[in-house]
């Protein structure tokens, strides 16, 4: 649709339904307006709300919903980088070292361990599978790390391991949704959207919530894991690419100059602004700010996304692969974005679903490849953030949507040259670093074969509560009214894991 057509359509709308509503309900609009500009669910009656200031001083409408906002209490984390290993990496081959599991390798699992358990694929009585890696202790903290992560093992004193994570879901899509939206079903806002809704963005020329995807496929839950749900869509994650156009459809179309683009956007936004004054639907604000953001991004995004301007040494340190889509490229991008004030950077790296049904899913092949693709880059990311002083205010989280069983999964029951493990939701490992999280610390403990938690369990809602806490929010108070009740990321549970906070 051409710009003229759109303008004509808007005008038509104004002449019909809007017009009727306007003449019919002069007062209703102002009531709705005050409910939008009044003390919001985030702010309460704080002194520093931009919206209130603007309301009091009679500033023009159309306040950008992405302007920086005030948290409940001083934030430790101003940024979050979430490194999601989509498909759920095995803790038994990375961090949760169990010598007994090695000794029991190949033995049948005792029935007592299987009673009342449900697995995604395992049927009957599986055999136990020893770790397909060798382990050593590293750092002053003495954390166990496998030989698959030779780089990461150097920086274990900077991270906190959560060894007894658990989730409610044992299939990828619902578990990913659960991790990011607090619910296994569609429709809720994602973690990054909540963060942006609560805090706004520090950089008005870049999206506040950026999603970077690498690996052979996108996360199985799709774009909903970075969607805004019922929050205004201005808070949804924007997927960027490290190769080609960083953001699709951002460049000017052929035959349209930047100047003409600017005048068009100004005209459209003027119409939208009039419309907002009549029907204060927050989605109109979203529309306005996204037109403006897109225009500003035409200049700023190519600059921010161009990792080739980084010094050679830095590119080597991350293991950047020019011209490709890679986890390393995305890690370097993540740092550049955080440095420029982007609030939330979500990385997905696909391919950790090591069932052992084929070579790419084997713990001895595909899994090892994934480790190689990520080890150097995530280590470089942490070191780079640290020496720039960014790790003080950036929370880095690594993990999958669940973990994997200590048992061998043999789906067909026939001889299989590859080994793999099934999904495990009761216990798995994640790690966090930076922004007020303890360093060189391990929280949570599993039993002698890494099958059940012993202490220090952390539920996905607890993790979410903790992330919001570091961003300066009481997870019980960061709410949004929808369909008659206040919703929050952690729904009706969640506990801040104070034990891991420095």
């Amino acid at each position, binding site marked *: 649709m051409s710009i003229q057509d759109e303008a004509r359509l808007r005008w038509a709308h104004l002449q019909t339904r809007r017009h009727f509503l306007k003449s019919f309900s002069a007062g209703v609009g102002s009531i709705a307006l005050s409910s939008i500009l009044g003390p919001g669910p985030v*702010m*309460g009656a*704080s*002194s*520093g709300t931009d919206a209130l*200031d603007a309301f009091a*001083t009679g500033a023009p409408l159309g306040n950008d919903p992405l302007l*920086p*906002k*005030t*948290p*409940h*209490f*001083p*934030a430790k984390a101003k940024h979050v980088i979430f490194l999601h290993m989509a498909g759920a990496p095995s803790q038994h081959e990375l961090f949760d070292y169990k010598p007994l599991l090695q000794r029991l390798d190949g033995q049948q699992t005792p029935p007592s361990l299987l009673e009342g358990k449900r697995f995604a694929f395992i049927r009957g009585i599986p055999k136990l599978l020893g770790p397909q890696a060798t382990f050593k202790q590293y750092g002053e903290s003495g954390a166990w790390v496998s030989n698959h992560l030779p780089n990461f093992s150097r920086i274990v004193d900077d991270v906190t391991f959560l060894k007894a994570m658990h989730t409610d879901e044992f299939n990828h899509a619902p578990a990913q949704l659960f991790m990011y939206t607090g619910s296994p079903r569609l429709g809720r806002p994602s973690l990054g959207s909540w963060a942006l809704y609560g805090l706004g963005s*520090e950089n008005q020329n870049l999206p506040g919530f950026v999603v970077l995807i690498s690996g052979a496929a996108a996360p199985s839950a799709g774009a909903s894991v970075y969607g805004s749900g019922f929050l205004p869509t201005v808070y949804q994650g924007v997927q960027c690419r490290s190769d080609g156009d960083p953001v699709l459809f951002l460049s000017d179309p052929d035959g349209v100059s930047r100047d003409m683009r600017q005048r068009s956007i100004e005209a459209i936004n003027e119409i939208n602004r009039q419309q907002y004054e009549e029907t204060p639907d927050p989605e109109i604000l979203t529309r306005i700010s996204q037109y403006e953001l897109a225009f500003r991004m035409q200049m700023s995004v190519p600059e921010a996304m161009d990792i080739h301007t980084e010094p050679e040494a830095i590119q080597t340190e991350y293991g950047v692969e020019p011209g490709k889509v890679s986890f390393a490229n995305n890690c370097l991008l993540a740092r550049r974005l955080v440095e420029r004030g982007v609030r939330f950077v979500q990385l997905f790296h696909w391919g950790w679903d090591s069932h052992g049904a084929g070579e790419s899913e084997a713990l001895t092949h595909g899994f090892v490849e994934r480790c190689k693709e990520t080890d150097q880059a995530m280590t470089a990311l942490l070191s780079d953030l*640290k*020496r*720039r*002083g960014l790790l*003080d205010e950036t929370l880095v989280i690594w993990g999958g949507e669940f973990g994997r069983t200590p048992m061998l999964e043999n789906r067909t029951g026939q001889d299989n040259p590859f080994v793999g493990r099934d999904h495990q939701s009761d216990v798995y490992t994640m790690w966090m670093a930076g922004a007020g999280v303890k360093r060189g610390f391990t929280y949570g403990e599993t039993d002698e074969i890494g099958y059940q938690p012993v202490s220090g369990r952390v539920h996905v809602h607890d993790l979410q509560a903790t992330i919001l806490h570091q961003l*300066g929010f009481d997870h019980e108070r960061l709410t949004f009214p929808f369909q008659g009740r206040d919703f929050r990321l952690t729904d009706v549970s969640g506990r801040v894991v*104070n*034990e891991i906070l420095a």
Partner: protein
Amino acid sequence: MTTRSALWNAAATSAAMLLILLFVDPAGRAPEWARFMARQHPAIVHLPIGFLLFGGLLAAFRRWQKEDQPGRVEQAALVLGGWGGVAAAAAGSWLIQMGGYPTDALFWHRVLGFVIPLAAAGTVLANVSAPTRGLRGASWTLLVGSLIVGGHLGGEMTHGKAFAAEYTPGMLKPLVGDWPTLETRFDLSQPETSSVYEVIVVPILRTNCTSCHGEGRTKGGLDLATADAIAAHETDTEDDPLITWGDAQSSLLIQRIVLPIEHPRAMPPYPDAKPLSHADVELLRWWVDSGAGFEKPFSAVARPEAIEHLLGLYGLGDILTGVFALDLPQPDSSAIAEIKDWGVTISYVAADMQLLEWSGQDSSPLHEMAVTDRIKEHVVSVDLSGGNASDADVTRLGDFPHLASVDLSRTAVTGSTLAHLAGLEYLTRLNLYGTRVDDAALEHLANLSALESVYLWQTNVTDEGVARLRDALPNAEINFGE
């Protein structure tokens, strides 16, 4: 009633009260035979209150009718009420001996309990013989006032502090004021300087223990009134030490307070005194287990989640430290608006906190003194990274007294003016990476003892310069990018 009989009544009342005062020592032990009577105090006490208020009503009615002479019923009510008060005072005194009531409210309740019978007898006398109306009025005022205050204190001890005022209708609230909340029990306003012992332990011991073990009496040879006395205490050989730091289980202090209340050695002795609350026991246990001793400041002792939770119940969940504990008035919003117009991002650190963060690539607004001086007390963080900051800006930052974080990374700063930051007592974080600072500049940082992290990657500093800074600031993390 004649003046003579009123005088006799006053004398007899005084004598009775004197007997109670002399023979019932509040710190003593109530005799068996008096214990039943003691427990009837709450029942007995309401009878005289009724009589006396009834007398008061009659007197008020009489004054309204311009009648000067008190009626027989009014005098009878006063006499009966007065002697009822004597009985209540006796029962109350024994009840005090049985223990279990908070000492501060108890003191005044007891004083007023003695005042009321005497005031009643005095009013009887004044009614028949006082030369002026004023004296009679004063006598009535004393009596009714004592009844209200004394009765209120009694109610407070029985039902808890906020009982009467809790449901005061909104518009009357300002009259009754804010009653003290639980927060006032532990004063955590200075968590970095006050010790755990002083802010947590002393208040607990004072309400539960020191009326027998300390304050002049040391039952069982135990004195818990001072740190020195506690530290010096030696227990019998068959007992564990009073306190074994790091092991509450093996500390006699904890052992005794967690015994079942029926146990003969349980403390405080039941039923003479109430057991410690669960919260108090846990807090004491935490104090011993943490090994905090008598000196360690509150903020330096790790608080497990259960303790955070308990303190949260006392309204002390979020304990603010350092610059966040500053109590400042609201910053000048017109100054903030003006600075924002210059392209600086000014944001509040948190809702309900008057602290600001400053970030912007252009440093020139810092030098608009007339405007920025108005909020310089409020700014706790300045981020000029990647911008045009210069050494002159560093000089200017020294005027912002409460800065906790300064980010000058990726700027042309050489560090020659870093000495101007010397007065910043809260400065914990200084980011100088990607600047031209050198070893000479680092010398200026040696006195900034609050510093926790300094970033020096990609600068002109050398290993020796960093080593010297590490010696000067042993608690700070100096990141050199190595």
